[in-house]
């Protein structure tokens, strides 16, 4: 195996106040450069539009060139820009093993909900693959909602995870639900 793979991968993140034309502006640069948008997730967070992109390009190519081409467009759109070169091992698709679960956590807002739940899951070998949080409710009674998808380690089931999270649920006085969402192959 060569240490110099033919395809280079970059992690690009772009964040800024939402407006029309952000995706068009960024993707136009990538298209013009001949980049491939290998994977991406873009969403609105509060009033910010956040883009995380995995971009690939055959050699010869450089991170500096990619940054220099994206920067003026990001500046024009009022967006922050970060570009990182991925090690070839990082760019490979990682298949999640084990049961995939949706973990829902919600309750009266308090500091540390995300941290405590994530720390507990990490200790159990549960790998978070997707996470969304929102503050809902009213200013007088704010409610925190966290929805995450996670891959369970071998031997763990939604039922066993639910039982293991029971103490934390009582301590934080929040609701914690675990449901299997492992895709069905058809």
């Amino acid at each position: 195996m060569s240490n110099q793979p033919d395809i280079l991968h970059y992690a690009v993140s772009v964040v800024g106040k939402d407006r029309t034309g952000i995706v068009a502006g960024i993707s136009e640069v990538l298209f013009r450069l001949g980049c491939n948008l290998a994977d991406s997730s873009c969403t609105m967070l509060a009033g910010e539009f956040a883009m995380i992109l995995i971009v690939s390009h055959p050699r010869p190519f450089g991170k500096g060139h990619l940054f220099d081409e994206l920067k003026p467009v990001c500046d024009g759109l009022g967006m922050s820009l970060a570009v990182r070169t991925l090690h070839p091992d990082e760019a490979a698709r990682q298949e999640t093993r084990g049961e995939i679960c949706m973990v829902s956590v919600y309750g009266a807002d308090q500091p540390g909900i995300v941290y405590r739940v994530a720390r507990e899951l990490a200790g159990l070998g549960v790998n978070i693959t997707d996470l969304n949080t929102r503050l809902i409710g009213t200013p007088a009674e704010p409610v925190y909602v966290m929805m995450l998808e996670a891959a369970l380690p071998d031997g763990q089931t939604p039922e066993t995870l639910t039982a293991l999270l029971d103490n934390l649920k009582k301590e934080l006085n929040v609701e914690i639900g675990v449901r299997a969402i492992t895709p069905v192959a058809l």
Partner: protein
Amino acid sequence: MPIQPILHYPHPVLKKLCNPVETIDSAILTLVADLIDTMHAGPGSVGVAAPQIGVTLRVCVVDVSASRNGKENNHGLLLMINPLIVSRNGAAIMREGCMSVPDYTGDVERATEITVRFREPEGNEREIIATGFEAVAIQHEMDHLDGVLFLDRIVSLKTGLFRRKNYS
């Protein structure tokens, strides 16, 4: 009977409207046998539709009896020629994957109970009420007969919890 290769999108056959079977002849019986063998060859596969092996006819096979989600509630091996859903009830979302669209899954809403009428290879007409995972599998395979992929039915990107408010 030989296992047939599963076609992957963007093979054009997967987006074709399939034709009804006029007469159940030896070619149809061979097709059904090939579909069964192909289904059993796919890891964890619970169904295959004729267009997935390149045949634009309204034939599919479904068998969820060996699957975790369907083993408690199923009609065994279903050989469906010209299947027609005559009624549907309820709705539930399940994350589906498809052998013809590898490496991608998505949340799809399906009826939880269907009454489906079809002909069997022996020529008789049969009507069953399928529920749960078997109902999902039948709807997924029957979609193939209309050139519809689960990608056409995805209802949310990852977590479809709710639209975020704009706080600005």
